[in-house]
């Protein structure tokens, strides 16, 4: 099963916990090596153009007690471009200021990251990614656990980046968000179950294939889906379905 992401598009990576969403992102980032198969990123092997990639880990993977400020975290996005032994230039500081402005965190530079709300934390990490000025964004659950306003604003920022020709690959649990705000989607459950246009996210059969039958779909309203993936390990997904870019 292969997956191709076009430049300038937003790809949502969907699947239950343990489906391999984080693993897929790490493979693309070159943080893990594939056991089989091949991956080509920005025209070369993963990790080959690392400076053009911004990777944002899941919120749970971050030590929020770490003594760093909002401004310091955002500046980390510039480090690989600044180079060893050199200090941030005026241009670096300007880009960091712009990135913090874009995500609405300009007034919070001196705050320690642990003192921020969940939504603000995701904003700061997105600012770090923006400051890196990458071609490819790899975001592990960028809008998980944030309020609706923050989610809309973060998605607006990502959409603007996509319009500017950047590629965004983000894992998410929010199917409505994936269907409405992304262009492409990939369903994972230990392997790629299906790929296609983002609208297919709401396909009931596909959802039940991916989530192993633990999807409760409220009748009569296509917009309301309830996921119960607490037992997804017990049952493997059903048959593999192929969704190719029909009509796109």
């Amino acid at each position, binding site marked *: 099963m292969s997956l191709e992401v076009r430049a300038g598009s937003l790809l949502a990576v969907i699947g239950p916990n343990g489906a391999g969403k984080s693993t897929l992102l790490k493979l693309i980032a*070159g943080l893990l090596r594939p056991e089989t198969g091949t991956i080509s990123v920005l025209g070369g092997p993963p990790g080959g153009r*690392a400076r053009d990639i911004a990777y944002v880990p899941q919120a749970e993977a971050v030590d929020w007690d770490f003594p760093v*400020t909002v401004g310091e975290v955002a500046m980390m996005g510039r480090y*690989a471009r600044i180079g*060893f032994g050199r200090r941030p230039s005026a241009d670096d500081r300007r880009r960091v200021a712009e990135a913090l402005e874009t995500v609405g965190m300009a007034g919070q530079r001196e705050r320690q990251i*642990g003192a*921020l*709300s*969940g939504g603000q934390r995701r904003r700061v990490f997105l600012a770090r990614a923006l400051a890196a000025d990458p071609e490819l964004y790899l975001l592990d659950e960028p809008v998980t656990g944030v309020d609706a306003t923050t989610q809309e604003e973060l998605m607006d920022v990502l959409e603007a980046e996509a319009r500017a020709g950047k590629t965004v690959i983000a894992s998410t649990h929010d199917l409505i968000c994936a269907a409405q705000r992304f262009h492409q989607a990939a369903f994972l459950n230990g392997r790629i179950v299906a790929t296609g246009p983002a609208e297919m996210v709401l396909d009931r059969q596909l959802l039940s294939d991916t989530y192993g039958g633990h999807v409760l779909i409220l009748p009569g309203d296509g917009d309301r889906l309830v996921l119960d993936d607490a037992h997804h390990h017990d049952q493997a997904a059903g048959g593999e379905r192929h969704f190719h870019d029909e009509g796109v």
Partner: protein
Amino acid sequence: MGLVAFFTDPLSYVFIQRGLVAAILLGVVCAIMGTFVVLKGLAFIGDAVSHAAFPGVVIAFIGGFPIYLGGAIAAVTTALLIGFVSRRSRLRLDTSVGVLFAGAFALGILLYSTIKSYAGDLLGYLLGNILGIGFGDLVQVAVLGALVIAVVVAIRKELLFATFDPLGAAASGLPVSLLEYLLLGLLGVTIIVSIQAVGIVLVVAMLVTPAATAQLLVVRFERVMLVAVVLAAASAVAGLYGSFYLNVPSGPAIVLIETAMFVVALALGPRTGLLASRSGRVAGSARSG
């Protein structure tokens, strides 16, 4: 005795002058390395590496090699070995550390017991004696200390990124594994030069305590490092004067002053202290929830 004489009298002794310079230098080096040790959770590794120096010291003594070279080789080897084992095995890091460190220290004790000639000096390495430091040793401390500081200061932003978010740093192209090994190697060097001051048993306190105290006081990374350095230098001076006037060993005196600073910061500091407003802390945890 006047206040000026209180500070100048001890300085008329050469051994105090040397000890003071060495203690301040080592305090500063340990504080800088310690900032990363605390933030990376390497305190136990630091303790392990210092204990692992002991067999190196004993082997060098038996073989007639420079004592510190033996200790340094053993310490750096163990530091790198711990990095290797934790990356390659499925064991938890603290487990592989515990295994390697106890094994190495046992080897040191066993070899020590086989020495027939007088080897009383070797036990001095366990407790250290900064007032006994010779001129040659002081030069060695100064050169190695300056080297460690220069390297860490030069790559501090990369070390910061790799420590804070190893995945993000690696994805952006920083050589995270190399930085990790470099950090462990520098830790080995720091520990071996510090053993002269406070001995194998107490080195970990010089590494961990000032940085831990600083973390209670300030939230910006570069300030944590700076505050740790200031606290460590102050403790070195106070510890040596205390050692001189109260006639107590200098290593434990330095460490106890660092510990006292930590306790004060814990009790009164703005982030965790009893004086930090209770409502503020409740609001803080609600925000982060």
